[in-house]
């Protein structure tokens, strides 16, 4: 190279003039070889990391439903008091996967939502909307009370005291072959408007429904 010649500006042609390089080639073979080796290595690494990662986060995107579960006959449930029933919310974990659901018949004097095939009974979860402890229905007080942090909910499951951010979740109900069945869970905001189920601790009023989006695994 002539001593006065300006150095090549592009790093892609920096290898020009090395022994064996063709005149005028834009990407030298050395650079091509390096790039190919790095690219092949990256491809091979992605070949096992991406499937493993997808394997780990796959359940987030899989919609999981347990279908309808029979909990009793229509005459078991009055319209002014909740009757506890047991349902499975998580399969395969034995007793730990069972949960209490509080059920009463729909009472037009209290329940102002339009009647439909799926709300002839009001099924309220026993899972506190604060952090997931088990609430208990106290008939004499007509209140659900959570033992963990003292949230209190009224007959409709709407919060009247405590740290809970939204009313108690509900389940779809239906009459099937003469039996009352409960289906999927849904969450409600303080006006009892239905949303896809949220986890405990996630508010639904105002900006809450956007800060805590519904998840594909339980979206209705």
């Amino acid at each position, binding site marked *: 190279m002539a001593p006065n010649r300006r150095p090549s500006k592009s790093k892609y042609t920096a290898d020009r003039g090395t022994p064996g390089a063709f005149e005028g080639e834009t990407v030298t073979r050395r650079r091509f070889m390096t790039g190919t080796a790095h690219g092949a290595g990256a491809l091979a690494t992605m070949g096992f990391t991406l499937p493993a990662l997808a394997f*780990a*986060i796959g*359940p*987030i995107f*899989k919609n*999981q439903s347990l279908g309808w579960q029979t909990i009793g006959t229509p005459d078991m449930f009055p319209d002014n008091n909740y009757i506890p029933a047991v349902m499975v*919310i*998580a*399969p*395969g*974990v*034995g007793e*730990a*996967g069972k949960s209490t659901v509080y059920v009463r018949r729909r009472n037009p004097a209290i329940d102002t939502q339009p009647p439909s095939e799926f709300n002839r009974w009001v099924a309220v979860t026993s899972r506190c909307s604060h*952090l*997931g*402890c088990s609430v208990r229905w106290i008939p004499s007080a007509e209140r659900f009370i959570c033992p*963990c942090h003292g949230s209190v909910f009224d007959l409709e499951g709407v919060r009247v005291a405590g740290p809970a951010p939204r009313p108690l979740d509900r389940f779809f109900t239906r009459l099937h072959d003469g039996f009352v069945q409960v289906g999927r869970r849904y969450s409600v905001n303080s006006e009892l408007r239905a949303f896809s*189920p*949220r*986890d*405990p*601790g*996630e508010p639904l009023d105002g900006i809450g429904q956007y*800060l*805590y*989006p*519904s*998840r594909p*695994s*339980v979206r209705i």
Partner: protein
Amino acid sequence: MPKLPAPPIPPQFLPQPPRPGTQRGRPRTPLEKGAEAGKSAVDWIDERTSLSGGVRWMLFRKVPKGTNWYYTLGSATLFAFLSQAVTGVFLAMYYRPETTGGAYESVRYINNDVFLGQLVQGMHKWGSSVMVVLVFLHMGRTFFFGAYKYPRELNWVIGVVLLILTMTMAFTGYLLPFDQQSYWATIVGVNINGTGPLIGPYLSDFLRGGPEFTATTLSRFYAIHMLLVPGAIAAMIGAHLYLVAKLGTTAPPWQRAAVDTPELVEEKV
């Protein structure tokens, strides 16, 4: 290359020259033969790896004046981690991550029937609290002594990552006995994770392996607890220790360097 400092070997262990007048070809005692064998084994490895320089660089460092007992908190945390690692490996020999009674039963079996099982499980259980406490004490020492400042900021960052990993270990390990307490604590803990805006709900689904707490959750927590996070902690501790050896430790803030301060004199104009 600068000469590495010689290890501070006590004089009685240094090789002694033969006394004047003694026979050079004296038969060696079995103790001397044993010492020779050990030395030649270490030499054999060192000749092929040159490890001794690194070991000396790591272990025989100069520490500043004023170094005190608070500087042992990091080593104490490391020791707690090693204790957790060893007891955890042996607990894994008996533990079964089954939600339908197997997990609880295996922990009950470890505690009641296995020889020294109660001790090993107890060390692991209480050791986890000890480790969390030591991490915070070590962090407090670093903070109050100003040891996080330049050029040690990166070591502080690595330390914070280690703190998060330690908390992850404590959280995932809490579920494994699978009794009422750990079950409900994990439900509440995962729901607290879910209260993070925007990604919280997805994080909950990831932790549970689905919308509800199932058998997948337990095996997932077990894998995170005994494979994923311990590996990450070990790697991070390696980086942490490398930086400690590389940058050295700081003197306590009350320690002043001995400098000759020129006496102040009134300036005559």
